[in-house]
């Protein structure tokens, strides 16, 4: 396989620095929780559904505790008590609470020991449920061989979940290995998870547990027909990272977009909130063996892809470090980057190869997620189709893991069914005629590609040094990432975080941390 010479010490040094940077953040995370983290606990305990105002019950319950200022101890213990009081299932209990039929916020008069026992039991069931999804997925995957990398990843975004199923079927017929249902614009800014099947959305379809289920079922049928397991992807970024992770786990999703900084930088979500939530969401992903995709590609859509290449590398290293703190194994890290260099730049393709090669070599065990050209897509769809074709070549030639299909109408509208078909035709064509190229060519020593890869790594290392010094949060506040400035206490969702009280309890998190990494075969 074509390689650029990288100095392993420098690589190790950089990873070490990234890990130290993550440690600093982790110590903050450990002391805090958020409303959505607590809602996640309720969901995993079995609370779902909405009230007459369409407010999800998990939100209602957490809000009750907040008003009573009892949230700092976590929702788990009070809810366990309430269940003892109701003598009913979680869902029924939640409804009674909302109806005000039972007290919520204290021990409901039960001895501490009983409540702890109940919590214990709830947590075990919750974790069992997550383990169950992992096993179901493994069985399904084992029925069929793993697709050859790069995996062809297609996005669906009609806004209507049923229409999405039709499009997904079409995409899989044309060769897609993974299907992502893009969310409606700004769902990431909602401080709750919408409920039920939805048929209206802008630029995407709402991420709801019901929609997850509907699409997963559709894909299972297609999988049977096409004789290959099709992976389902959705997005956990935003104000509900952990909750969506929970819903996704329960519905056997395979992949979640999940970045430790995307929400901060690109959705102006408060950084404390994001760091707290991403941790719990990633704990769930690692237990459910949900592969995460990070969003480094976004740096390049907003700022220059050559000047800011190093931010991508640095962010990948930080995402990796933080993911490991949440026990995610390397095979579950779809670290992101993109083919976004201005096509007017001479030898732009050589830059792209250098960047792609660097990502590939820095994370040899991770399925790198490669994003297609978007920013320089033209409304001349024929020209844009050429950009994607070259992107497809760059991907297969540098052995990327997850290949997002570039769409010829990128600069115009969200993909039509035929746009996706045309895109996959190009991918299938290029992958087939150039599969062997990766093992056939060598990059010239001290050639353009080698030099460029080294330069980016140097810049990234230098940047990490800086970050370690000022600390990640402060660095973001100073606008060090893609010159986007986010203050420590600015952005959305700050109000939703709190410092854990001494008696704080979240037995699910405890259990996940206690068990740590779940060792198993890659495709489990």
């Amino acid at each position: 396989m074509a390689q650029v010479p990288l100095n392993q010490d420098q690589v190790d040094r950089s990873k070490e620095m990234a890990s130290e940077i993550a440690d600093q953040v982790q110590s903050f995370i450990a002391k805090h929780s958020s409303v959505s983290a607590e809602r996640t606990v309720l969901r995993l305990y079995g609370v779902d559904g909405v009230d007459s105002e369409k407010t999800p019950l998990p939100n209602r319950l957490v809000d009750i505790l907040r008003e009573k200022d009892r949230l700092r101890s976590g929702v788990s213990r009070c809810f366990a008590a309430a269940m003892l009081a109701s003598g009913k299932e979680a869902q029924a209990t939640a409804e009674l609470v909302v109806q005000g039929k039972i007290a919520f916020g204290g021990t409901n008069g039960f001895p501490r020991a009983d409540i702890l026992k109940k919590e214990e039991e709830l947590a075990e069931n919750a974790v069992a449920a997550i383990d169950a999804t992992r096993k179901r997925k493994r069985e399904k995957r084992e029925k069929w061989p793993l697709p050859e990398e790069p995996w062809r990843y297609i996005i669906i975004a009609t806004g209507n979940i049923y229409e999405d199923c039709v499009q997904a079927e079409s995409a899989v017929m044309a060769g897609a290995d993974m299907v992502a249902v893009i969310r409606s614009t700004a769902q990431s800014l909602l401080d709750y998870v919408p409920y039920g099947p939805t048929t209206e959305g802008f630029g995407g379809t709402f991420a709801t547990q019901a929609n997850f289920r509907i699409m997963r079922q559709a894909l299972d049928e297609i999988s049977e027909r096409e004789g290959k397991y099709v992976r389902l992807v959705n997005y956990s970024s935003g104000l509900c990272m952990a909750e969506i992770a929970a819903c996704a786990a329960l519905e056997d999703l395979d992949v979640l977009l999940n970045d430790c900084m995307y929400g901060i930088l690109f959705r102006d979500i408060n950084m404390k909130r994001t760091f707290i939530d991403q941790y719990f969401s990633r704990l769930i992903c690692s237990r459910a063996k949900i592969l995460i995709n990070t969003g480094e590609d976004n740096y390049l859509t907003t700022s220059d892809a050559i000047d800011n290449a190093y931010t991508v590398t640095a962010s990948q290293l930080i995402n990796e470090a933080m993911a490991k703190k949440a026990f995610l194994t390397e095979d579950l890290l779809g670290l992101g980057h993109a083919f976004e260099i201005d096509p007017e730049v001479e030898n732009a393709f050589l830059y792209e190869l250098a960047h792609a090669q660097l990502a590939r070599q820095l994370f040899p065990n991770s399925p790198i997620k490669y994003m297609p050209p978007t920013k320089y897509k033209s409304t001349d769809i024929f020209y844009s189709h050429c950009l994607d074709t070259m992107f497809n070549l760059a991907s297969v030639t540098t052995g990327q893991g997850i290949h997002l299909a570039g769409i010829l109408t990128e600069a115009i509208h969200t993909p039509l069914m035929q746009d996706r078909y045309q895109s996959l035709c190009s991918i299938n064509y290029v992958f087939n005629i150039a599969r062997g190229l990766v093992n056939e060519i060598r990059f010239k020593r001290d050639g353009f590609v080698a030099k460029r890869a080294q330069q980016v790594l140097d810049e990234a290392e230098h940047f990490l040094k800086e970050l370690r010094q000022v600390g990640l949060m402060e660095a973001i506040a100073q606008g060090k990432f893609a010159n986007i400035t986010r203050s420590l206490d600015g952005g959305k969702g700050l109000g939703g975080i709190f410092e854990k009280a001494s008696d704080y309890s979240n037995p699910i998190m405890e259990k996940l941390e206690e068990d740590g990494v779940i060792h198993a075969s890659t495709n489990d």
Partner: protein
Amino acid sequence: MRQQMIKPYGDTLDDGIVQLSFTLPVENGERAKKAAELYVAKLNFENVSVVHSRKIADNFTYFVVYGRAIPTLDYAMVQVDELKTKQMNFYETNELIRTGLRRCISVVGATIGSDAHTVGIDAIMSMKGYNRDYGLERYPEINTYNMGAQVSCKALLEKAVEVKADAILVSQTVTQKDIHLRNFSEFAELLKGKNLRGRFILLAGGPRMTNDVAVQLGYDAGFGRGTLPSQVASFIVSKMLERSKG
């Protein structure tokens, strides 16, 4: 019969979305874009968006446009005369010739007119055939005479008469200014003129050919892009049996 109204599908049923690209003989600019929009509206579109415009020569502008087509079509009313003969393979066909016709059949083929494309007719007639489907030459029960390209109608007919052909295969690839239609008809007319039409099974083929059109031109059948030799063989034999019976 129940109606079945259809429209183009973009990403929602009946959204009518269609992609167009074309060139107008005007200089690029806001007015040119407006012209493109108005023109596409004349083509029965609404929500026309001229997404791209670019000067490609003095006074010529290239456009990419998306629009929502307004008309609906009743699919239930759409009919084509598809050629319906059961598709047989190499062995079945030869067998049927032996048992059904009890004699070898002979087939003459050529690309007529100034058209020099032989790959198409060769694909049908040569040993090698097409897409791992044997050509007629390989059929033990079929004698083939492939005259190649740039053959005059007269020469082709003479050959057919000379070898007592059962079927004549005419190929046309160049379609500019519909020259293929003119050539096909010329040959059909020649046969009629000489009262020989009845004597042969007459087949037309080429990348732009359809059975529909061929029949209109007075041929027994037409075959387009991707035709397999075995389809042609099956048709000829079934047709011959049909005639020998009726």
